[in-house]
């Protein structure tokens, strides 16, 4: 009962909202028309923006009311215009003093050349019609109530119709959601484009941070171990010269050299720990984090539930993220206790770090959290932080597809058996209703042939013959259609899944 009431309420709201789209469509169409006919290009971007705002609302409502999450379908926005070394900004062959005009030009072109803009417009144009359909149950109900008040006997019939319409409302809403997704949902092309855009950014950041890391290592080696080895070499040279003349001094120098080698070793050890901790390669993520917990001044409880070891680069990223989070908890959060949970969720690696500190962690301000995000970005990892003032701070790291690539992904793309059955049935038997019992019977009837043979429709009473023949033809055509369309639709789904891979580095 409540379900139908909610569905009716939603369809009423969505329907009324859709009717107002008529005004929007006319306005936007006018703006676009003016921008082409009179050259008022200035009007195009605001028009497209209005459309986008409306469709963003539609996507949000679809997620909330229709249970159908729809992602944005736009191509990634153009990158900001870069300043040239001579201080000018270039757009094609023109130079500008400020980035405003080139930026504007880029945005205009981006909106104009994005098919999603035109799909948005098509949706907004057709939406009032579908909105009217959504309002139908309410209108019939209201009409039925009205006639009932006047005492017409038709009211009974209308009442039945209204009940049927309201019963059908959830289906109506589902169709409306499907239609909205059809026009506003992301296409394979836009998904690929935004994926490439994201990968591009992640690659840049990864390359940047790698280069910075290498520079740091080079500096550490140069100022540390390398310098110490030079000193040891020099000391040994001096020992060589002194060993006969002044054995006591030589002995003192040797002790110094030994001390220097020991310091160099300590420095190298610290450096190695920063590059890739030995315990991580020896024992894997779980024990490496336990070792980390033992070295921390906080009380850390570690629970690990992993069946397989993630790839080594993923392991390393996860390890250093946890290490950074532990340091943060001790330094900024003022925590006493920390709980670290490492577990697998199907193929995802999920890490939760909870501390009882004072909270208030903000990724915008903390460079540490930003660094973790950068580290994780290379593996499509996501960092989520919940840190209200007063604590507790809960940080969740999700690394998708970090665990062993299972073969089952190949079987998932297979068509289910029942679909194969329909396809087989279509190819095997569709000819039967279509040709002998459909088209041929129709010809027999048109030329009024006496022979009834085995055309069963001709044995039926006269008024039923034509409807049955037409039904047979339609049935045959539908069977053929299903046989052709089901594999196409399926391979499209599969193609979409393959066109948007989530994991690119594991293909050994």
């Amino acid at each position, binding site marked *: 009962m409540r379900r139908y009431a909610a569905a009716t309420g939603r369809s009423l709201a969505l329907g009324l909202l859709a009717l107002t789209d008529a005004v929007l469509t006319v306005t936007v169409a006018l703006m676009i028309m003016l921008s082409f006919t009179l050259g008022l290009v200035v009007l195009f971007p605001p028009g497209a923006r209005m459309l986008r705002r409306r469709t963003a609302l539609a996507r949000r409502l679809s997620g909330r009311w229709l249970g159908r999450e729809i992602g944005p379908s736009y191509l990634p926005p153009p990158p900001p215009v870069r300043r040239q070394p001579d201080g000018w900004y270039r757009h094609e062959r023109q130079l500008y003093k400020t980035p405003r005009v080139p930026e504007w030009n880029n945005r205009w072109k981006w909106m104009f050349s994005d098919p999603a803009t035109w799909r948005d417009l098509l949706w907004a144009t057709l939406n009032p019609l579908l909105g009217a359909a959504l309002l139908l149950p309410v209108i019939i109900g209201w009409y039925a109530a009205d006639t009932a008040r006047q005492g017409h006997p038709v009211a009974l019939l209308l009442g039945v119709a209204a009940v049927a319409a309201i019963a059908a409302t959830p289906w109506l809403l589902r169709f409306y959601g499907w239609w909205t997704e059809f026009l506003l949902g992301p296409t394979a092309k836009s998904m690929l484009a935004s994926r490439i855009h994201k990968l591009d950014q992640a690659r840049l950041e990864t390359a940047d941070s790698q280069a910075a890391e290498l520079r740091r290592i080079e500096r550490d080696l140069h100022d540390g171990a390398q310098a110490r080895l030079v000193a040891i070499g020099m000391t040994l040279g001096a020992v060589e010269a002194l060993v006969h003349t002044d054995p006591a001094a030589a002995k003192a120098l040797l002790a110094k050299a030994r001390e220097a080698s020991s310091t160099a070793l300590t420095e190298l050890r610290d450096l190695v720990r920063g590059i890739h901790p030995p*315990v991580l390669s020896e024992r894997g993520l779980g024990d490496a984090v336990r*070792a980390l917990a*033992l070295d921390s001044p906080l009380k850390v409880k570690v629970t690990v539930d992993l069946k397989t070891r993630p790839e080594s680069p993923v392991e390393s990223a996860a390890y250093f993220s946890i290490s950074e989070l532990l340091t943060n908890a001790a330094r900024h959060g003022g925590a006493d206790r920390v709980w670290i949970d490492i577990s697998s969720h199907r193929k995802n690696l999920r890490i939760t770090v909870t501390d009882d500190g004072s909270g208030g962690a903000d990724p915008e301000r903390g460079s540490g959290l930003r660094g973790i995000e950068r580290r994780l970005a290379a593996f499509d990892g996501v960092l989520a932080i919940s840190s209200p003032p007063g604590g507790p701070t809960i940080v969740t790291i999700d690394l998708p597809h970090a665990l062993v690539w299972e073969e089952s992904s190949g079987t998932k793309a297979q068509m289910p058996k029942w679909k194969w059955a329909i396809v087989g049935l279509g190819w095997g038997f569709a000819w039967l209703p279509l040709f002998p019992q459909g088209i041929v019977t129709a010809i027999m009837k048109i030329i009024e042939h006496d022979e009834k043979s085995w055309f069963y429709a001709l044995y039926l009473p006269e008024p039923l013959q034509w409807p049955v023949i037409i039904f047979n033809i339609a049935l045959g055509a539908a069977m053929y259609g299903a046989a052709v369309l089901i594999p196409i639709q399926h391979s499209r789904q599969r193609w979409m899944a393959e066109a948007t891979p989530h994991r690119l580095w594991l293909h050994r």
Partner: protein
Amino acid sequence: MSARVVIAEDLHLLREGLVHLLRAHGFEVVAAVESGPELLKALTGERPDVAVVDVRLPPTFTDEGLQAALAARRAIPGLPVLVLSQHVEQLYARELLADGSGAIGYLLKDRVFNAEQFVDAVRRVAAGGTAMDPEVIAKLLVSTARHEPLAALTPREREVLELMAEGRSNAAISQRLFLSESAVGKHTASIFGKLGLAPSDDDNRRVLAVLAYLNAARS
């Protein structure tokens, strides 16, 4: 009779160096191996008086040596093992100490530089004692910094505690800190009183009690 030693180390130079060093100090080197499986065979076959083992060994170059040492100690309880490593981890120290029977050493490879102290550590382990690297103890004390009874120790007592946890006897501690042995004895009694541990005259058991206490304090 000289003590019989098994050495496991994959770097040829270092292995030879260890063999020479220990021979020069009167040990009998019965086997010098370079991989995990060989080590396990040598340990269970030769039953040496002490084994000097590198953590990272072929074939996997992970913690092969440590695993072999632990396996051998499960087969022969109390088999004295001195583990050497390029890095020290509290995690590994805990695993080595877990069976509570002592005769365990865990040192950084750097400690080999100081031949006397290294040989002293090997002798201590062979005799059923403990030799923990100062770095392990330092890390342990850092991570227990907030533990209240430990925070109540005086700086001197802390120094004594550190040396004690490394596995040194009262005599060695007194030498190291330039104190009289009776003064060290007083300090240890005071430490045991503050930490609520039962005093013990046996050096080895004392060390294990302290290590167990420290390990428990931090979890």
